């Protein structure tokens, strides 16, 4: 037992004392914040710029063959509708630069849903400006008969639903019920992206730097694997706590500075609810899924001869973890689909699928238990194979372990 404690401490400290560990941990949220910030600022600046271009467009001719454009809207934009028969002449003026642009709304606009723009230059900003102008003229003309500005705004942007959901005859927290188990999906990916690969690196490095043989003289292969797994789990916990701390600090700063965080679907941080079964199954799927993938990674590292070779095999597991996102709509809206059933119980996809289905509450209690049991069996098999691969391959420096050898009775 004391050896296990030494292994856990050694493996844990080896990972978290690396400067690269903290650089990545700090750099990722910073980079994400920078990307989001730059995107928001860039979009705002771009929208403002286009709006300015639209305002400055006065040398633009408009021909309306559809009869849908309201001439009051056009004149309010300090522009004039041109007669239909002047099309050729106006187009020629655009070509020679006398006119900035020509917008032509065709007769079949309602069915064809397309209008023409002729532009004097290839300037992309000007193209955006003219397109925005043409869109605005059309939409405002169409919405004008609705009357009040409020109704026009409602027609343009729609409205949000104030949703009340019932379960077993009782009002639920609606989408707020999805947040806590939904965060477990995010947590799984954080752990998956960082910690699972530590298992691969840890075993591969020990093989590559040839320290394995000295260790195995004093430690059983199973103890070494379990020690590494527990150490990597602690590393994951450290990462989760670090990111949670950052999130809390970010939230407190937002609240302190008076910024309200607007969440979609009526979600509210103070209304997040924690229900026993979704949290129980979510945390169980997270832990068992993590251990299962860690087992796969250990097998890849132990059975191959180098970290590079192990990484090639590990990409299969990464693909497996991301496949569910190609079926996200089906998973959420059509849980009875046979593909969803298959992926729920298929080892490589089961952790993510079950976490998603658990979050949106479309698994029955019986199915949740069945999925947990199946995943548990796969986890045990994966760790058994990992220990076996480790025993066979730990001291095999020149050739990978064959699959047939791995499952051969000894």
């Amino acid at each position, binding site marked *: 037992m*004391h*050896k296990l404690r*030494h*292994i856990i401490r*050694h493996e844990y*400290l*080896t990972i978290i004392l*690396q400067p690269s560990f903290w650089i990545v941990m700090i750099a990722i949220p910073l980079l994400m914040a920078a990307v989001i910030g730059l995107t928001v600022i860039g979009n705002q600046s771009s929208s403002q710029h286009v709006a300015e271009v639209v305002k400055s467009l006065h040398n633009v001719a408009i021909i309306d063959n559809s009869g849908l454009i309201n001439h009051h809207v056009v004149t309010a934009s300090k522009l004039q509708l041109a007669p239909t028969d002047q099309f050729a002449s106006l187009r020629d003026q655009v070509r020679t630069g006398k006119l900035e642009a020509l917008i032509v709304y065709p007769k079949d606009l309602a069915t064809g849903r397309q209008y023409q723009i002729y532009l004097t230059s290839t300037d992309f900003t000007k193209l955006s400006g003219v397109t925005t102008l043409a869109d605005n003229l059309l939409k405002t003309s169409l919405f004008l008969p609705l009357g009040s500005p409020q109704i026009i705004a409602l027609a343009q942007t729609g409205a949000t639903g104030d949703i009340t959901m019932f379960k077993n005859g009782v009002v639920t927290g609606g989408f707020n019920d999805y947040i806590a188990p939904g965060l477990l999906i995010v947590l799984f990916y954080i752990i998956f992206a960082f910690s699972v690969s530590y298992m691969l690196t840890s075993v591969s*490095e*020990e093989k*590559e*730097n*040839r*320290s394995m*043989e*000295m*260790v*195995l*003289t*004093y*430690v*059983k292969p199973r*103890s070494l694997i379990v020690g590494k797994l527990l150490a990597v789990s602690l590393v994951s916990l450290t990462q989760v706590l670090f990111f949670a701390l950052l999130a809390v600090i970010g939230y407190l700063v937002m609240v302190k500075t008076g910024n309200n965080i607007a969440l979609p679907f009526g979600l509210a941080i103070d209304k997040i609810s924690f229900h026993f079964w979704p949290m129980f199954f979510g945390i169980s799927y997270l832990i068992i899924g993590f251990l299962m993938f860690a087992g796969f990674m250990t097998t890849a590292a132990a059975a191959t001869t180098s970290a590079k070779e192990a990484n090639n095999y590990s990409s299969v597991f990464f693909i497996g973890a991301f496949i569910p996102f190609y079926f996200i709509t089906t998973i959420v809206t059509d849980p009875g689909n046979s593909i969803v059933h298959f992926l729920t119980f298929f080892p490589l996809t089961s952790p993510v699928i079950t976490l998603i289905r658990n979050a949106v509450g479309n698994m029955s209690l019986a199915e949740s238990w069945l999925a947990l049991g199946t995943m548990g069996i796969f986890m045990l098999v994966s760790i058994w194979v990992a220990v076996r691969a480790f025993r066979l391959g730990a*001291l095999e*420096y020149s050739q990978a372990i064959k699959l047939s*050898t791995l499952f051969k009775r000894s």
Partner: protein
Amino acid sequence: MKKPIVSIKDFSLTLGGKLIIKNLSFDVFPGEVFAFLGSNGSGKTSTVRTLLGIYEPSGGELLVNGKSLTPDTAAIVGYLPEERGLYTRAKVLDTMIYFGELKGMEHETARQFSLAYLERVELADKANLKIKKLSGGQQQKIQLGVAIMGDPKLLVLDEPTKGLDPMNRKLLLDIVDELKQQGTAVIYITHLMEEVERLADQLLILKDGEARAYGSVAEVKKQFQSKSIEDVFVSIYNEKSSEVTHA
């Protein structure tokens, strides 16, 4: 009568369907350097791994102090494997203490031993450096330090001087001599016959998994009517027959 610390009887080993060792038997006594010789692939490392409990024997018994070794009872053994290396990203002192703890030493005892050893091999100033910052020879000294931690009763050194300069080679051989004087049994695997002549009390030459010569250095030389162990080795590997010769 002196009791052997290592006793191997009728040991056979099959790995991946291939017979690696055939009915090997030998004893190693306390305070003795036992030269375990043979060309590459003859089965020396496999024998040592089985003795240490890393591999399971297909037949026979391999005992250390009258018991089969397991990782839990291997603390009495110091092992410097042929394929050796250390945690390159870890610090020198931390690595030595870690291995000491795996051998069952207390943290402070392992620390004191490590600092004293580093002082002796003139690496005290490198204690807090990462292993990857050390030269190959310096890393090898650390590995020897790890092997001799905890006063092992049996020391297994697999080509310990490979890659060492003459100064460090002398230092290592001096340490082996000291341990021998203190009663430690040493299984010494090497391809350098002058080391055998200088250090060994007993020797065994392995060919194709079988013992081809076994006895004291003088006995083996006499048996093969050779002036040197190198000549014995060459004559065995030039032989076609597979008869075991016990001097």
